[in-house]
């Protein structure tokens, strides 16, 4: 089955510093990868996706992600973190079992941006 791993539980970063949230994937075939953000007591919101094309994908709220095939990674990045970026971040991959486009999610990373 297709899967993603988010190795860190929590990422702490000072406001204004670069933010990186790590994700590695394990797929057979082409990977279709996503990032979502969950603010407290809210549903998940789509940030960006990689299907094909440029390895650097730009998304919402100033986030971008870099697809790296040799390292099987899809890390989420933001050049300058804001306190309002504090949230739970999920990496996801298309799990094509049964020809379906369902997504399998990683365990999530809590990001804490320190003022």
């Amino acid at each position, binding site marked *: 089955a297709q899967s993603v791993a988010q190795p860190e539980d929590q990422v702490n970063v000072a406001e204004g510093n670069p933010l990186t949230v790590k994700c590695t994937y394990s797929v057979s075939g082409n990977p*279709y990868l*996503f990032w*979502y953000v*969950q603010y407290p*007591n*809210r*549903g*998940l*919101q*789509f940030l960006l*996706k990689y*299907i094909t094309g440029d390895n650097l994908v730009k998304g919402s709220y100033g986030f971008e992600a870099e697809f790296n095939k040799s390292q099987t990674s899809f890390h989420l990045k933001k050049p300058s973190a804001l306190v309002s970026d504090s949230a*739970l971040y*999920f990496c*996801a991959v*298309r799990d094509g079992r*049964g020809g*379906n*486009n*369902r*997504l*399998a*999610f990683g*365990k*999530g990373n809590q990001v804490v941006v320190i003022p």
Partner: protein
Amino acid sequence: DTAVSQTPKYLVTQMGNDKSIKCEQNLGHDTMYWYKQDSKKFLKIMFSYNNKELIINETVPNRFSPKSPDKAHLNLHINSLELGDSAVYFCASQQQGAGLQGYTFGSGTRLTVV
């Protein structure tokens, strides 16, 4: 206008009761899902319907029964609630077809079984 709406937002009930959670999407999407988010924030797929047809049923106890009266609605009925059912349940919709689209999530239903 909320794209994917779930009701209720909070649900507190006693063990053994039967309860339902409703989900509606106004995006015209073909597919709807139910996910369970446990206390460790892990998201696990439960069910998926495509145009009212059940296409995914992931080893969920048969106390959980989804119903899709039309492609805009996917409800979740739970019989004989247990303490372990306490979680946040998310509904999501997805458009199928050309290009791979992500999900649009509802805001979740926090179920607490006491």
